[in-house]
């Protein structure tokens, strides 16, 4: 039945698109490479400018996904390749093994307490804390199922000595699992789907700040990216919302945010990532709420407060929360050996004076890079975003007919825009799905084929 639609990427845009499609009774395959949907928004604690909590917006949408039988979730999987044309695409999806039979697993979490391997860096908390080899991605994950991390599991990836002697180790989780859902022999499989349209919603990743050696990301201890800081300040974060320094676990007294890390820079990315000025302001306010006597400073060149309610949010940060905004680009960060504090070197362009200031903690507002390296025949722009066929006459279609693109992978944007686009793309995809179901793919009288 090729009246269905493939949504690649389970972030807020992908979820919204899937919901809108399912609402009209169309079958949706939602492919997500992580074990749970939610995408980057699941990492957030609060969203700007209204400061309402991110999971209050995302969690109900994720819960709604389970409510529609015609949404098929393909977790832990990636699109291998796509052939065919609008109306009947053939998509091969590689489903990586989770080593747990998800039909049986009810997400009770007993295995995650019993597993002996305790030191696996938890990528949901971006490595700030540890988890077990068998884990549920985060408490509100959808689907709330366990996954075994083959790299660390002693059974699936035994240390050299044991492998030579052919001994099978551990098996603790299998013993404790009440529903016998553990399947060590599970293999990855390739699923073939016939779909009428594809919506690309693979979203974005943070640019690798290690590419900027002068900042010393990955070397200095009290240096975080803004996503890591978001985890720190979130209630479900590694420290339960306490902002603690990695070096000595104390509360910081002075925090700095450095803007345009990897953005607006010919050496890394020309584009501006649009979200980070407001995200930094929000995090400064959250820091002030958690630690009333902390002093927050944001180093910027142009504060991009362009959206609805953004400018008032910025003024409020300055007025009510005393956040300092200094216009100057930080070029270098040095770590003090003893206190592990960080000294930032910049020119305060207001006073034209080279300044060096010491901070307990520094947060880098890192640029975004689109997840656009996909096996799809769509064209990309010079910056690596997925190219729109005609932004004015057909705002959500890619250069390939029948494939639509939404969210951050098409351009730097924030949550409301992504959600808006998702609805638009869902409707367009639904159109093709309905038509191809009714087998009457014909050219319209006025030459406008499918995309109107």
């Amino acid at each position, binding site marked *: 039945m090729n009246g269905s639609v493939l949504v690649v990427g389970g972030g807020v845009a992908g979820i919204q698109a899937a919901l809108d499609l399912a609402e009209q009774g169309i079958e949706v395959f939602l492919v997500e490479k992580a074990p749970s949907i939610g995408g980057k928004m699941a990492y957030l604690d609060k969203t700007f400018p209204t400061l309402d909590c991110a999971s209050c917006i995302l969690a109900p949408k994720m819960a709604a996904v389970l409510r529609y039988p015609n949404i098929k979730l393909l977790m832990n999987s990636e699109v291998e390749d796509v052939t065919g044309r609008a109306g009947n695409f053939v998509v091969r999806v590689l489903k990586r093994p989770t080593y747990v039979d998800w039909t049986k697993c009810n997400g009770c979490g007993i295995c995650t307490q019993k597993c002996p391997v305790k030191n696996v860096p938890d990528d949901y908390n971006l490595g700030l804390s540890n988890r077990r080899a068998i884990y549920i991605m985060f408490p509100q994950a959808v689907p709330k199922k366990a996954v075994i991390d083959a790299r660390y599991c002693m059974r699936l990836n035994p240390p050299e000595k044991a492998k030579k002697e052919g001994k099978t180790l551990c098996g603790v989780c299998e013993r404790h699992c009440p529903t016998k859902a553990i399947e060590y022999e599970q293999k990855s499989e390739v699923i073939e789907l016939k779909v009428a349209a594809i919506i690309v919603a693979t979203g974005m990743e943070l640019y690798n700040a290690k590419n900027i050696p*002068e900042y010393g990301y990955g070397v200095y201890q009290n240096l975080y990216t803004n996503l890591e800081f978001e985890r720190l300040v979130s209630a479900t974060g590694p420290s339960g919302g306490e902002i603690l320094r990695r070096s000595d676990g104390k509360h910081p007294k002075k925090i700095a945010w450095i803007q*345009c890390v990897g953005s*607006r*820079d*010919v*050496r890394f990315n020309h584009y501006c990532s649009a979200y980070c000025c407001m995200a930094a302001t929000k995090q400064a306010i959250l820091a002030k709420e958690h630690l009333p006597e902390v002093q927050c400073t944001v180093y910027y*060149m*142009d504060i991009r407060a362009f959206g609805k309610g953004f400018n008032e949010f910025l003024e409020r940060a300055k007025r009510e929360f005393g956040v300092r905004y200094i*216009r*100057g*680009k*930080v*070029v*270098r960060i040095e770590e003090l050996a003893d206190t592990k504090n960080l000294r930032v*070197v*910049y*020119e*305060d*362009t207001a006073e*034209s*004076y*080279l300044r060096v200031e010491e901070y307990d903690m520094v947060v880098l507002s890192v640029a975004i890079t689109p997840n656009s390296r996909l096996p799809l025949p769509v064209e990309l722009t010079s910056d690596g975003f997925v190219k729109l066929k005609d932004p004015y006459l057909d705002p959500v279609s890619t250069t390939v007919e029948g494939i639509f693109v939404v969210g951050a992978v098409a351009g730097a944007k924030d949550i409301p825009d992504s959600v808006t686009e998702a609805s638009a793309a869902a409707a367009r995809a639904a159109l093709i799905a309905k038509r191809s179901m009714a087998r009457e793919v014909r050219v319209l009288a006025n030459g406008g084929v499918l995309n109107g």
Partner: protein
Amino acid sequence: MVASSILFANPKIAEEIIKMGGKSLLECYQCGSCTAVCPITESIDVSFRRAIRYTQIGLNEKILGDITPWTCNLHGDCTDSCPRGASPSEVLAAIRRYQSGFFDPFGVSRWWNKTKLFEKLILYFVVFVISLSFYYFYYWNSLTGYISTEFFAVKDLSYPIAFSALFASLILFLSAKRAYRAFGGGKEYKVGFLSSIIKLTKFFIEVEKDALKVPEKRDRIIEHVFILLGLGFYTLILLFYLFSPSYFFIYPYGMILKFLGYFAAISLLYGFSSPLMKRLFARQKTHWYYKKFTHSTDWMSLIAFFPVALLYLAILILNDISYYYFSYILYIVVLSLIVPILLLEVPFGKHNHWLYKVLAYYIAARKGFFKEG
């Protein structure tokens, strides 16, 4: 330091700076990376961004009195780290050319900095021909007599050189006085003479030490050292020839002089040829410094000195193999090559920057721009 008086913005200045080689002047969006990343600003309290800003807007009063462009030591870190891909070091060089345009009394260097390379070469060639013909008509018949002796009675060959050297030093002196006044020399001195000299030397040693660690910078420093040594010894020898009593050409001193001569020639030759070659045959691998610093004055200063170095070496060799006649002719050519250098290149060309740089550092030190510790 908020100036109360209102200053007029003059867009012409920005155009001039761009003509003088600061192509990427207006690409900068004032982020301050150049100031922050420059090793100089760690010890001197200056803002290169602000110096560039003045020229972007075109505030003449601010630009002329600004010492900052002169404290630049051409490390190039700013151009490496500029987020906009502009090259602040190139712009600063252009600002220096613009400023020097106001220092020399007749404003010739302003014209000189704006002309194209071939115009410079033509003017240069004209002066060269004049000085050559001067030698030819003035000296040639009296010279034939001397050829036979093993050495040259150089004293009276020196008049054109002496005259142009005098002229150059006069111009340089006047420009230095105007620069000194422009930089606000003598006013608000906070640091004593001696301690600023000590501070300056410590600063230079330290800055150069760091620069040596970086390969590209090391090449440029070596080239500059060779040029300095070469020019130093060359002028010494020239003076020697001009004013020393003739006995110096006998055994022990002659040998030292010759050896010094060779050393000067070779170092001059290397000093000028290596940057020239790098610029001529700039490849992908060549450091941006050689690819970007290609203003006509850069070329001119190299093109002017390169033949001098070459011919000087040829003269020494010819002397050794006692082809005095040829060496003598070459000697005349070298001298007439030096005349345009002295008349044009030194007072108005790129090399007068050394004078203003030293002045600027000195005044900066005296004014207390050097940070303690």
